[in-house]
């Protein structure tokens, strides 16, 4: 499967990570499926903490009601609090991915976001994984169209202008419904 990623996915996912650096974050990816390809079109930050079933259900329904036309929920992104371990999905991340794969009746994509230090600079890297809908087994994406240079150029403005401070996830939205989980300012 080939995965390509639009700019706003990088922006929203990374903004979510930067906003909640002391917590694990998780979000939903929507995109378009083609024969052997998935294009990730948008990201909806979900939570900065454990994801519980009732709110996951409501979040999926609200995303379905507000996502761009012609897209479906195709996967999730997750970032674990900075560690020196190689990026991997948390147990709850795996569960959510399985729900997404079963719901879609197709393989689901996971974007793992890693925040680490390289040459004294903070670097955000993205890794793509694929969960097979039949076997529920996680594997690397054979052709991930993740471009580190494109990702960092997308994030430059988000970081420089501190746009990540205004990111809204469903945890925040359910606290205060005036906060827009679509994050139109980052689109």
């Amino acid at each position: 499967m080939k995965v390509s990623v639009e700019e706003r996915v990088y922006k929203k996912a990374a903004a979510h990570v930067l906003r909640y650096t002391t917590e694990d974050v998780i979000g939903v990816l929507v995109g378009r499926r083609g024969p052997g390809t998935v294009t990730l079109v948008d990201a909806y930050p979900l939570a900065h903490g454990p994801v519980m079933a009732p709110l996951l259900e409501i979040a999926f329904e609200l995303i379905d009601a507000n996502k761009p036309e012609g897209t479906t929920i195709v996967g999730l992104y997750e970032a674990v609090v900075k560690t020196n371990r190689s990026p991997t999905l948390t147990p709850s991340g795996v569960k959510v991915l399985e729900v997404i794969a079963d719901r879609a009746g197709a393989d689901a994509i996971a974007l793992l976001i890693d925040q680490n230090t390289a040459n004294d600079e903070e670097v955000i890297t993205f890794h793509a994984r694929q969960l097979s809908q039949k076997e529920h087994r996680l594997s690397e994406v054979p052709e991930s169209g993740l471009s580190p240079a494109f990702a960092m150029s997308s994030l430059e403005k988000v970081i420089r202008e501190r746009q990540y401070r205004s990111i809204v996830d469903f945890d925040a939205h359910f606290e205060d419904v005036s906060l827009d989980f679509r994050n139109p300012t980052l689109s």
Partner: protein
Amino acid sequence: MCIRDRYMGSDSTAISLMESKAKTLQKLVSKKEKGSQDLKSIIHFIKNNNLRYPELVLDCSLQLFAEYPSSMGHEYHIILEELVNAAIESDFLDIAKRGIKSLTVKFGRDNIKVAKLAANYFESNGEENEASRLHDKLSALNKLDLKIQKRKLAFMKTRGTAQEYIEGLNNLLKDNMNDTETWLELGLVYLNNLSWSRALYSYEQVILITPSLLYAYVRIAEILYTLGSSENLYQARNYLCYAIIHDQEITRALWTLFAVCRAIERSGRSDNKNSYLLQLCQKRLKLYYEKSKSSTLLDNYSFD
């Protein structure tokens, strides 16, 4: 404000208190020409009200040391301590190191406050072995000091495994069974590891100790829903109704109650109250979305 803060005790009181503190701080900061007294007032206000504005404290204290060094008098080391804390939080570790050196010269290495600052510095600087050694030493000397024990555990959280962290939390609870914060943290760790029934027990302990913490009721309801079964759904409904009676504007509880009542309806084991509650949730949610001018989010959403 994080989720836990939102539901601590009486919501409206907590929120209005936070807002009034923020307004007071805003007034202090907005003064154009700030003298040494103004800078000290800002630092003391932040410290005494347990607020977190490390960059502001850093700016004010550096300005004090640079422009008004003789004005601090007996407050010199107090402000230096705040400077070190703010520098560590803002990742200006060279400033923190110099501050700690100065405090060590004055008070000695064995001073507890200096040792705590040094431990925090080593942690932030990635010197894990030094930080661990200091945390162990402080923890052994001060078994009754909860802050020191919790700091050691927080350090363990990033270094060790989840199992070690859970063991540490349980050990802390053996001597401090009434500490709400530790039970909340334990509940969160169990949730992250999908141990639903242990998480449930932890949050139940929280409401035994702090019955006014509505956040815990909502969490328990979410866990019960996740566990499934009709009995759990009805129990979840009770917890959520309790939370909503005490704070009608908890939209998270309203959404969760909507999900619970809908699940009960779909299970075919509904009772008279359920349809009433389902309609109440729909009405209230639509009302709050309209009040917040975000009703467009529900345009294509069906409550059925």
